[in-house]
C-alpha cells in the first residue's frame, strides 16, 4: 500500500560539514507523502541536522534535497512548504495563544473573521479550544506543545517536522501525546518527520524509521523489520535488547546457511532476507531477542530446540522476570524475558535450567 504513495522528500548523497566535522556522510533516502517517518539515533548522529536541512535552517555541503520534486537549494525557510515543531516549542512569549497560532497567517488573503475561525479550529484540533486568550508564557509544557502543533498545522504544510517534540514531557504525558500525534497525522494526512532518540517512541509512532549513526543511515525500514531483522549489531543494540553469540558459517547455499553457534550448536538458518556478503574479521555472530527464548519448567517441552544453562541473575519486574542465563559452553550471560503467568515460580540464582529457542528467531550478523 505504502509503495503507491508519491515521493515527498528525497535526499541524494547529502553531505554536510561543520568546518572539519563531517556531520552528514552521504544520506540517500526517500520519504513518501503522508508517511509518518522517524529519524532515530543517539545524540550527535546527525538526525536533527538532517531535519534542519529540510526546514532550510542548515545548508548542505553537497548533494540534493528535493521536496515534492523540487530542489530546495537556496530556498529560505519562509518559502519552503514545511513547518516545524521545535524541541523548545519556540512559543512566542510576548503573544497570546491565538496570536501564536495565527502568527503565520499575516499574509493570508482571507478576512480577519475567517482567520480567527481557522485559529479556533486549529486550537480545537489539538484539544485547546477556549485557550485562545491565554498568555503563552502561562501554559504548561504539554499545552505549549499543542500550541506549537496548531501553529504549524494551520499553515497546511506539505511536511511537518518534529524535533524531539516529546522529550520535555513526563512519561505519562509523553505516551498520551504519542497516540494523539498518530491520530492527528492520520486525520490531516500530512507527511510527519519526527526526530527522536527514543527507540520505543519511534517504534510506536512511525510507518518507517531511519536509524542513524555518525552521519549515516544505518538502516531504513518499517518498525517490525527493524526489530526482527536488524542489519547490523549496532542497530540491533539500539533498538531493544539483543543477545549475541559468536558463530561460524560452515556452508551457505540458496539462502540457507549452515552455522555453528557457541552454546546453541549446529543449525540451518534461513538468511534470505538478511544481509549477505563477506564475514567481518571479528567473525560472524548470531543474535536473538530476550522474548524469543524461553526457560523450560519441569516437564515442558521445547517447541523447537533446547540448550542447558545456569541462572546468573534474576530481575523481577512484576509482570515480567528477566533472567540472565549462561548457556553451557559460553562466556557471556544471555538475557531471557519470561512473562510471570499464574503458577510459574521465579527461579533462584544458580538454578540449572533448560532454555528453549528456535533457529527461526535468530539473526545472523557477518
Amino acid at each position: 500500500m505504502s509503495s503507491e504513495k508519491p515521493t515527498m522528500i528525497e535526499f541524494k548523497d547529502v553531505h554536510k560539514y561543520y568546518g572539519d566535522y563531517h556531520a552528514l556522510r552521504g544520506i540517500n533516502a526517500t520519504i513518501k507523502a503522508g508517511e509518518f517517518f522517524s529519524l532515530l539515533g543517539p545524540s550527535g548522529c546527525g538526525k536533527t541536522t538532517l531535519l534542519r536541512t529540510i526546514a532550510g535552517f542548515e545548508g548542505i555541503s553537497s548533494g540534493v534535497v528535493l521536496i515534492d520534486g523540487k530542489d530546495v537549494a537556496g530556498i529560505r525557510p519562509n518559502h519552503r512548504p514545511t513547518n516545524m515543531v521545535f524541541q523548545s516549542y519556540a512559543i512566542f512569549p510576548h503573544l497570546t495563544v491565538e496570536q501564536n497560532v495565527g502568527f503565520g497567517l499575516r499574509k493570508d488573503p482571507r478576512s480577519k473573521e475567517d482567520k480567527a475561525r481557522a485559529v479556533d479550529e486549529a486550537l480545537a484540533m489539538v484539544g485547546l479550544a477556549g485557550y485562545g486568550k491565554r498568555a503563552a508564557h502561562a501554559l504548561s509544557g504539554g499545552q505549549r506543545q499543542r500550541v506549537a502543533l496548531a501553529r504549524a498545522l494551520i499553515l497546511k504544510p506539505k511536511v511537518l517536522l518534529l524535533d524531539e517534540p516529546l522529550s520535555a514531557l513526563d512519561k505519562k504525558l509523553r505516551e498520551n501525546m504519542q497516540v494523539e500525534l498518530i491520530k492527528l497525522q492520520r486525520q490531516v494526512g500530512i507527511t510527519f518527520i519526527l526526530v527522536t532518540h527514543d527507540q520505543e517512541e519511534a517504534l510506536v509512532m512511525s510507518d518507517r524509521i531511519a536509524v542513524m549513526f555518525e552521519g549515516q543511515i544505518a538502516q531504513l525500514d518499517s518498525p517490525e523489520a527493524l526489530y526482527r531483522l536488524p542489519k547490523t549489531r549496532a542497530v540491533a543494540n539500539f533498538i531493544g535488547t539483543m543477545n549475541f553469540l559468536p558463530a561460524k558459517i560452515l556452508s551457505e547455499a540458496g539462502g540457507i546457511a549452515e552455522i555453528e553457534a557457541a552454546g546453541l550448536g549446529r543449525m540451518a538458518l534461513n538468511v534470505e532476507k538478511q544481509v549477505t556478503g563477506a564475514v567481518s574479521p571479528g567473525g560472524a555472530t548470531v543474535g536473538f531477542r530476550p522474548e524469543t527464548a524461553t526457560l523450560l519448567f519441569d516437564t515442558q517441552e521445547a517447541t523447537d530446540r533446547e540448550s542447558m544453562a545456569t541462572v546468573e541473575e534474576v530481575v523481577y519486574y512484576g509482570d515480567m522476570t528477566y533472567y540472565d542465563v549462561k548457556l553451557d559452553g559460553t562466556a557471556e550471560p544471555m538475557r531471557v524475558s519470561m512473562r510471570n503467568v499464574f503458577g510459574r515460580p521465579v527461579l533462584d540464582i544458580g538454578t540449572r535450567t533448560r532454555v528453549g529457542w528456535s533457529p527461526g528467531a535468530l539473526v545472523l550478523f557477518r
Partner: protein
Amino acid sequence: MSERQVRSRFWGSEAFSGLALISPTALYAILLLAAPLATTLLYSVFTDGYLVVIPHFQLCNYIGECRSQLADGTPSPDTYLGAWSDPITQALMLRSLNVSMLVTAMTVLLAYPVAYFVSFNVDASRKSLWLFLITIPFWTSYVIRVFMWNVMMSRTGVINSVLEGMGIISEPLQMVFTIQAMVVTLAHAYAPFAILPIFVALEKIDRSLLEAGQDLGETRFTTFLRVTLPLSMTGVIASVLIVFIPTIGDYVTPNLIGGGKIPMIANIIEKQMLKADNRPLGSAIAVSAMLVVGLISVLFLFLNRRYLKGQK
C-alpha cells in the same frame, strides 16, 4: 518560649543576616540620598534669608512672587518669581527636556545596532571582549570625556583643522556652543549605558524563536519586527530611562560644550544654590525638575506597559 530564646532566634535568623548584609548600603543610602532629599524638600517650602534658610513655611518658591529676608530680618524690597511662575525657569526646563529627549533618541537608536551586533553576530567566545571594549570610555573621567568633545569641535579643534586643511571649508564651523554639540557629546557619554541593557535583553531571546518566525513565513527583517524587537523592548525601555533621567540634570556639558551660554535646568539650580544664595528657590526648582522627570518616566512606562508584563 522565654525572652532569651526569642532573642537568640532573632540574632540567628535569616531576616537578621539579611538586614546585616544590607545595612551598610542602607545606611549609606539614608545618609547620602534620603537625608539630602528630605532637606531639599524642606528647603523648598522655607524662606530665604541672608546666607541662611529660615524655617518659615511658604509655597511662593513654587508659584507666585517671593521675598527674601535681609540680614536684619526684614523682608527684602525686591521680589523673585517661584519656579513654576518664572518664564526663564520654564524655558530652561523645556530646553533640558528637549536636549535629553534628543540625546535619549539618538543614544538608543545608535546603541541598538551595536547591542544587536554583539549579541547576534559576535562569536560567543568574544562577546565579553566586545563588552569590555564598549566600557573602555568609562576608564576616563566623565568631565574629561565631555571636554574631549570640546577639543574635537572647537573653532580651532580637530574637526575644523582637518576640514580646513583639506580645503573643504574656508572658515571654521561653529560647532561648540550649540545644542547639537551638546546632544552629540551627551549621546556619546551615555552610549555604554544604553548598549548594555539592550544587549542583555537580546541575549535572553531564545534563538529558536527567530527560526520559528522564519519557519512561519516571515523574512529575517519581518521576524525582527514581530519577534526580536518586541522581546527586546524591556532593554530599550531600561536604556531610555537610564539615559533620559541623568541627562536632564546634566550640568557639566552645558558648561564645557555649551560654554555656559546654553544653560540647562541643573545650571540654574547651581546658580540659585551658590551664586544667588537662594537655596529655597534652588530647592524648589530641583524638586520641580524631579517631579517632571518622574512624571514623564511613569508616563513612558505606562505607555509601554504591555512589554513589561511577566515573561518567561
